[in-house]
């Protein structure tokens, strides 16, 4: 029998951080787009495109960081596409987002088969090496190998903290952030005040896509250096749930994503114990997302006016 303490320890915390990272990036992407008044159901597809192009670039160039850059670029491109469809052509935001999800799934499956000859997975490519923070390890008065895992993470995990803080500063402490929120809450008023509504929405959607792409590439290059068919597996939607749970705020989104990260890590821990059949354990994150969404968002009110804005 496995002891419960073998599952709940610092290693769990480290794993949770790793699991939360893509969710944090994607939910920040969601925050940016929803603050500007656009629902981004396409986060899932943008993540998948990021994961795929990251591996593709790494495969051809052998440089994982170029892969990360290309993933951010592709994510931004799909954010722009979402913007063109929903802002310029006043299209339905949910249909457009779902279209992006379907496109990403079809495109990556087709390309993976064309390039690597397998629908299911890519070959192994150079990933991003972990960076060990030695000075932190020395300064924390705890011993054991668990700390090694906590402070030996992918640089994208460390970057995540910076991005969360930056997002908060941009959205709530700068004039740009004020404009973004104004555009989301009341585009006509923002327009009267001289804000370029369309440009602001485009910028936010591109940022949203870039963040989702970054989250996606962490999945593929951050840990294993391999692309797997539909490897996001609904994480874009979980990120949306985390964003709602975090009340459309960067720190809130971070906290909610981290909570999901802990749940995922627990799930992996449970899987290794063999107490429950694997299918039931695999289903738990999705059940929990529904429960969390239903149970805790009662008072959550979306900050934005989601109608497409048409200038008179």
């Amino acid at each position: 029998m496995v002891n419960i303490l073998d599952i709940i320890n610092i290693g769990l915390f480290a794993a949770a951080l790793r699991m939360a990272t893509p969710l944090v990036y994607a939910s920040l992407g969601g925050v940016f787009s929803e603050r500007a008044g656009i629902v981004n159901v396409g986060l899932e597809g943008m993540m998948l495109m990021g994961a795929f192009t990251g591996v593709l670039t790494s495969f051809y160039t052998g440089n994982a960081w170029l892969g990360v850059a290309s993933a951010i670029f592709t994510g931004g491109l799909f954010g722009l596409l979402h913007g063109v469809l929903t802002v310029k052509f006043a299209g339905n935001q949910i249909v457009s987002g779902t279209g992006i999800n379907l496109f990403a799934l079809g495109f990556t499956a087709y390309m993976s088969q064309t390039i690597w000859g397998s629908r299911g997975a890519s070959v192994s490519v150079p990933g991003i090496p972990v960076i060990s923070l030695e000075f932190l390890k020395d300064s924390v008065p705890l011993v054991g190998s668990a700390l090694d895992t906590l402070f030996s993470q992918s640089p994208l995990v460390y970057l995540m903290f910076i991005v969360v803080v930056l997002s908060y500063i941009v959205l709530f402490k700068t004039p740009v952030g004020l404009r973004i929120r104004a555009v989301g809450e009341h585009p006509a008023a923002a327009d009267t005040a001289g804000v370029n509504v369309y440009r602001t929405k485009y910028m936010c959607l591109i940022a949203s896509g870039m963040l989702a792409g970054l989250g996606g590439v962490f999945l593929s290059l951050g840990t294993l250096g391999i692309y797997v068919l539909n490897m996001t597996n609904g994480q874009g939607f979980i990120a949306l749930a985390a964003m709602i749970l975090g009340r459309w705020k960067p720190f809130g989104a971070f906290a909610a994503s981290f909570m999901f990260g802990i749940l995922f890590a627990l799930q992996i821990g449970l899987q290794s114990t063999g107490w429950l059949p694997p299918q039931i354990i695999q289903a738990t994150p999705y059940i929990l997302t529904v429960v969390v969404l239903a149970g805790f968002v009662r008072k959550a009110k979306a900050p934005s006016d989601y109608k497409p804005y048409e200038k008179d």
Partner: protein
Amino acid sequence: MENVSRKGKKTDNPGALLHTIESRLPPTVRQRLGNTWFRLHPFITSFFDKLSRNLARFVRGIVPQAVAIIIALLVGALVLWATGHSPIDAYSQLFAGAFGDSYGLGQTLTQATPIIFTSLAFLFAFKSGLFNIGAEGQLLIGGMAAALVGISFTNLPFYVHLPLALLAGAGGGALWGFIPAVLKAKLDAHEVITTMMLSYVALYVTSYMVNYPFKAPGWVAQTPLIAPAAELPRILPPTQLSGSIIVALTMVGITAFVLQRTTLGYEVRAIGLNATAARSGGINVKRGMILALVISGTLAGLGGAGEILGVERRFIDHFSPGYGWDGLAVALIGGLNPFGVVLASILVGALRSGGMVMNRVTGVPLDVIYLVQSLVVLFAAAPQLMKYLSKRGVLTLRTAGRVLTRFKSILKNVRRRLKEEEL
């Protein structure tokens, strides 16, 4: 709108056409028709009138969809060409595979059947303003419920067992639609996220059931075969086309009827158009939303039951290649109209069954079809984009025409000069 014939003569009165036909008939026949014809005439005229008007509306409605499909196929061709396949080969194999013979046609309709259900499911929820993107989960749960009823009884007569199994499927789907419906109405949980998440839950739950409690002996994760009394008969052997398509077409009729001719349909549409206005109009919005999502789930669940009872005859793990996800795409291609959905389902079914032949013969990955389908969804997301594109297209054609006429007149001039010089 008036129909203008080629000569520029207005023929918006189809009666005129009948008159011409009548006058061409030989006198004896005309005499014999005589009285009855005279009496029937107004009815026939009004029938033709209605028909032509509906046809015109239908054609006008179908144009943007057709443009979207054509552009999507062209982009698909571009992707094929860029990855070293011959688009002409691929598409001709696809077409031949889907419509070339009765077997292909049967398989096309087989593939179209579950998609009719799931796109109706999406459509019904959409009419109330809800996005049920989780038809996949409802289809799986419905299929599992039908399979469980199918394997549980062995000595029921078919007229009890088959309806019971279908009902179970409908009930399973309804349950899986009820959960997000209640969460939406009572707790305001976003249905896009909950239906999506519940689809994953359904995927794993059914996978668990066929791997553990209801697993048939052997290596494959599947239930035992259902009792013959629960089977939907095959219609067109050797294809897998089953009675499920009849259930599907019945559901199309019922859905259209409910939406257009009943109070429930009126309420659902009113909620979808403007929930606030519907509420002030005395409609119970929450009840309407719950009902719409439950009916949506029921339709998807029936689709799953049809697949299990008609095609698979047992629940095999991961039997659905994503019929549920197709629902949204097909409902949009079908112009969010129950009858349009049938045509769109046949189109997508053809892509699917023809795509398999294409894959076998030319080695083109089947996923190119999902790519084309997703592009149609992207185009359908923004009708204004389609208008913009077709306007652009018309403008380009007009410019091209102008250039061509200009070119022609220049040629004419040149020719005339040449002649003058010769003289």
